């Protein structure tokens, strides 16, 4: 690490040089857009990768013919709409990535909202490519892992291959009238909800794993789940799971010895100026 005075000299020199117009790039060069932090860019660079473009994929699917509150078994149209919306959003993200010659997309931020009549899936991430160039793969990878996680995986000899996802929506059937009356003065297990959630969970996890094996992956890391009753329907529960499917890259794993570090920093009181911006535009 340089000492502070050489750092100071460096920025002074750079400012003076910039005033004289000495910089690399400029008109005629391809611009890079990226939502990676500087740490992520540096760590990607350390393993020989760089950002290319901010890319997105959005898909909205309708849920047809579902009453949400009355029925039993799986709500097939909702599960299908969820799978298709995410699948199409991933496809659009991939084609944007290929359009800028990216080899894959890292740091994908995933937002899925389910409403009574539709499922909306939004994916935003940064397309990346090896600095050395090379032609992009026919199917670029999509990963919700950060740039840092990507680098760690890369070093450990694994590659992300795609987003594995699965969701299941299941009716929690209404109890029979006699049960409702009998249970009105008891605190007992409502087996209809327990069974519905179990069924939804198994359905979703099974789909996610099947998707991963279709992608040729050895496993899924960083799985996120969202579960619970629907906000707009008390007799339907959802379980959705997604994560990054990974496989062995064939490169030897570089696992350096782990070092012990003790920080001497106190917990810092930090102020994030962006918090003033609020949630609006």
């Amino acid at each position, binding site marked *: 690490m340089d000492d502070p005075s050489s750092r100071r000299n460096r920025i002074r020199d*750079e400012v003076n040089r910039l005033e004289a117009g000495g*910089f690399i790039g400029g008109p*005629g060069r391809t611009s890079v*857009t990226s939502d990676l932090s500087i740490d992520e860019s540096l*760590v990607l660079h350390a393993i020989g990768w760089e950002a290319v473009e901010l890319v997105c994929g959005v898909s909205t699917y*309708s849920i047809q013919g579902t009453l949400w509150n009355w029925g039993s078994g799986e709500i097939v149209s909702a599960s299908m709409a969820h799978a298709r919306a995410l699948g199409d959003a991933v496809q659009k993200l991939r084609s944007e990535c290929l359009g800028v010659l990216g080899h894959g997309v890292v740091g994908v931020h995933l937002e899925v909202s389910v409403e009574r009549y539709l*499922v909306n899936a939004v994916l935003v991430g940064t397309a990346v490519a090896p600095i050395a160039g090379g032609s992009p793969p026919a199917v670029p990878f999509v990963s919700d892992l950060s740039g840092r996680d990507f680098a760690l995986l890369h070093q450990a000899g694994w590659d992300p291959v795609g987003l594995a996802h699965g969701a299941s929506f299941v009716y929690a059937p209404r109890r029979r009238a006699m049960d409702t009356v009998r249970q009105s003065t008891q605190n007992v297990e409502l087996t209809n909800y327990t069974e519905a959630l179990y069924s939804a969970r198994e359905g979703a996890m099974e789909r996610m794993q099947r998707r991963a094996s279709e992608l040729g992956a050895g496993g899924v890391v960083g799985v996120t789940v969202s579960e619970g009753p629907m906000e707009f329907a008390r007799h339907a529960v959802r379980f959705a799971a997604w994560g990054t499917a990974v496989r062995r890259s064939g490169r030897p794993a570089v696992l350096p010895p*782990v070092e012990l570090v003790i920080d001497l920093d106190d917990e*810092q*009181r930090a102020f994030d100026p962006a918090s003033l911006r609020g949630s609006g535009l």
Partner: protein
Amino acid sequence: MTAGDLPPEAAGRLSSPVFSSGLSVNDFAACLQLGLRPVALVQGYCVMRWSSYGANPPVGYRPVSGYNAYGNPGVGGYRYGGVGPFTGAGYQYGPRANALSTYRCPHYYTSGEHRTWGENYEQSWLTSTWEQGYETARARMVEEAAEAGAHGVVGVVDTSSLLIDRSIREFHMYGTAVVVEGGQRPERVWSSYLAGGRLSKLVESGFMPTEVVAAMASVRTWPVCVTEMLMRGSYVPGGYMGGDPVEITQVADAQMQARRLARDHVKGRLGGHNLHGADLRVAVHEIGEGQTEVDCVLRGTVVRRYRAAEPLPPPRLTVRANG
């Protein structure tokens, strides 16, 4: 405002030997480490009139007797009065000149209230109003910084919100003007959303910030029958019912278009340099069934490379023993 017409108090404040800053203590320390001396908290402000020109119907349509609100012959309503490609005698409604995509009704029959066509279009007047508000606020902030003799503005925060009756939008931007110790007199003041440690790492890795940049895109849908019905969950004639989910293409397209447009607007201003720390924010307003407005703002710092990249050594794994 032009240079030199700042209020007299401002001139006094900016030339005062006592500095003000919006930096946290961490960022302040990191800036000093980097050789940046804060001189003043500078700001820019601009208030713009902000109108979607009514929620319904899109601009270009005007009341014409004989056409209803769905563009079909009927009683009362609207027809196209613009310069779109389909404008012509006997066919007075159709895509606007700035339509991004158009949609046709797949059905064989129409009723008076059936929307036989739909389109997505950019509300370019909102894009340009936003740009003007943002650029003006930024120019005013930079002007204050130049007045204070600064080289750059770090830790920029910009806010934009609707005021009073939602037809006024304010743009507010502030940041800390800094002087580079030993730097030559600047011709142009640079600005950056980053400050402190993160700015320091950016410079160390071979980039200098040029300016903060942001663009807005607003896409509005004018739904065709199928979009409207799917959003409402109602029966779609022609066999959309029956299990298989269908993509609501028009709405999905609008969401993609808004994000792409915002990105393209920003890319158009990069001049071959890079956008660092992109922050994409989207707000979707449901105006009616299928009638959606997708507003998208993309912000970031334009950075230019002054030194070829020097890769860091591969990362080492460490364990923190901080309890």
